[in-house]
């Protein structure tokens, strides 16, 4: 199994470890509930070194990233970031990612750990005719996510004022112990926070120092379980659950990062057609009305005893909201807020209601 540079740290902190897509990762330390709440109210530290990083450089870099992703890269200023997706010709999703613009024709792409090889093979296969140099630099970076309302104070002490001045979805460069780092004001929790990309050689020092600096603020090391409940409360999609190669960008609710007027990109024709004709289904959020926790894979019904219309793509107890929530695809005519649906929870059927998303939105 693959290990991040922080593997020993997790074990020393008493983390429960799991196999996550071939990576030996911490699922929780002190407990998912208190880790989740720490991020909402104070600050939490995550090891997300398993994430993948690619660089795209060369005279056609801008044109190439425009071609393989659905958001409009030409709108990005230097040091600005956006959320996007690699698309297939069918308008479905290869992966979701963050695009960092480092220069006119220099981009840094951050992709899901489980998709690193698939994504790199895919973009490489789409690069003929483009004068670009693609590199998978995933092994050159460890990544720490410092998330929560107090995160900025820790990152400021680590890297200086640059942290305070940075806006959400922008990045900058810093050094730690003489090593270059990328500081990014982004995250997968719905809170303010930072993701720091650093050389693996300084990951342990940076991790320990972050915990030390965060102690007065109540920092907790947080595992993948809290990362999952945090992102679900904020309705951030999980690739492989909520979106995948069978769901289009529009069905998955990513229309806000799908710029159909930017010019051609892979899948644009189908997506334009789908937009014009209207969607047949879309990803919605629901809240349980009856007792019970909906979980990934449970069947979804429009009426008790009817035929299943789909399955729960993500579902959990939401620790901050203290509700049971989930996501599923519904036929468009049933996707309205307030619609009652039914979830098959093992032997029972429990009522749920379509609600507005995100379930949780931070106060700015």
């Amino acid at each position, binding site marked *: 199994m693959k290990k991040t540079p922080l593997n020993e740290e997790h074990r020393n902190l008493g983390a*429960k470890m799991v196999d996550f897509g071939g990576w030996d990762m911490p*699922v*929780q330390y002190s*407990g*998912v*509930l208190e880790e989740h709440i720490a991020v909402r109210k104070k600050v939490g530290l995550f090891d997300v070194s398993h994430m993948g990083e690619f660089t795209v450089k060369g005279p056609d870099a801008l044109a190439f990233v425009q071609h393989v992703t659905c958001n409009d890269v030409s709108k990005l200023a230097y040091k600005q970031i956006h959320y996007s997706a690699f698309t297939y010709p069918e308008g479905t999703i290869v992966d979701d990612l963050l695009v960092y613009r480092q220069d006119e024709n220099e981009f840094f792409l951050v992709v899901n750990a489980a998709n690193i090889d698939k994504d790199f093979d895919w973009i490489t296969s789409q690069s003929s005719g483009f004068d670009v140099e693609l590199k998978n630099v995933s092994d050159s970076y460890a990544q720490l996510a410092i998330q929560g309302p107090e995160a900025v104070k820790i990152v400021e002490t680590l890297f200086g004022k640059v942290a305070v001045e940075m806006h959400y979805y922008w990045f900058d460069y810093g050094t730690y112990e003489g090593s270059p780092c990328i500081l990014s004001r982004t995250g997968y929790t719905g809170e303010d926070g930072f993701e720091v990309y650093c050389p693996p050689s300084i990951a342990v020092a940076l991790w320990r120092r972050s915990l030390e600096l965060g102690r007065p603020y109540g920092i907790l090391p947080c595992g993948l*379980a809290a990362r999952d*409940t945090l992102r679900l409360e904020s309705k951030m999609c999980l690739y492989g659950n909520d979106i995948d190669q069978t769901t289009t960008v529009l069905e998955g609710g990513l229309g806000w990062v799908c710029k159909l007027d930017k010019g051609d990109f892979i899948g644009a024709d189908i997506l334009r057609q789908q937009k014009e004709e209207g969607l047949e289904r879309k990803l919605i959020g629901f809240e349980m009305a009856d*007792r*019970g*926790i909906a*979980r990934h894979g449970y069947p979804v019904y429009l009426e008790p005893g009817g035929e299943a219309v789909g399955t729960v793509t993500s579902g*959990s*107890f939401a*620790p901050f909201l203290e509700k*049971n929530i989930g996501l599923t695809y519904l036929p468009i005519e049933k996707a309205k807020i307030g619609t009652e649906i039914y979830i098959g929870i*093992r032997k029972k059927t429990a009522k749920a209601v379509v609600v507005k998303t995100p379930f949780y939105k931070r106060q700015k």
Partner: protein
Amino acid sequence: MVLEDFYYTKEHEWVQVDGETGTIGITDHAQKQLGDIVFVEVPEVDTELEKGDEAASIESVKAVADVFSPVSGTVTAVNEALEDEPEMVNKEAQGAGWLFRLRLSNKSELNDLMNAAAYAKYLEEEEG
């Protein structure tokens, strides 16, 4: 924590016997394995359970665990407090976090269960 007057199963349930009544729950070891418990479903009163029947379910944030009745009997009481305070199972798995009570229909089934010493040894072996 392995208590003396309890009987234990390999599935980490316990039964505490008082005359003809058995109180059933999950062990401290089981609650630790599950992590933060956020949902408990108990059987209905008067349900007749055979030994090994699925009787309750306990859910943590990440996992669902079925609880099988370690003995046969009729449900006489359930711990209704767990509906609002499922975390009681984490706090006091072998006390206030009990799940349900049975009027035992076959006390000889208790002979198939482990006593405290045997369960402690079983835990050691399981953890290798």
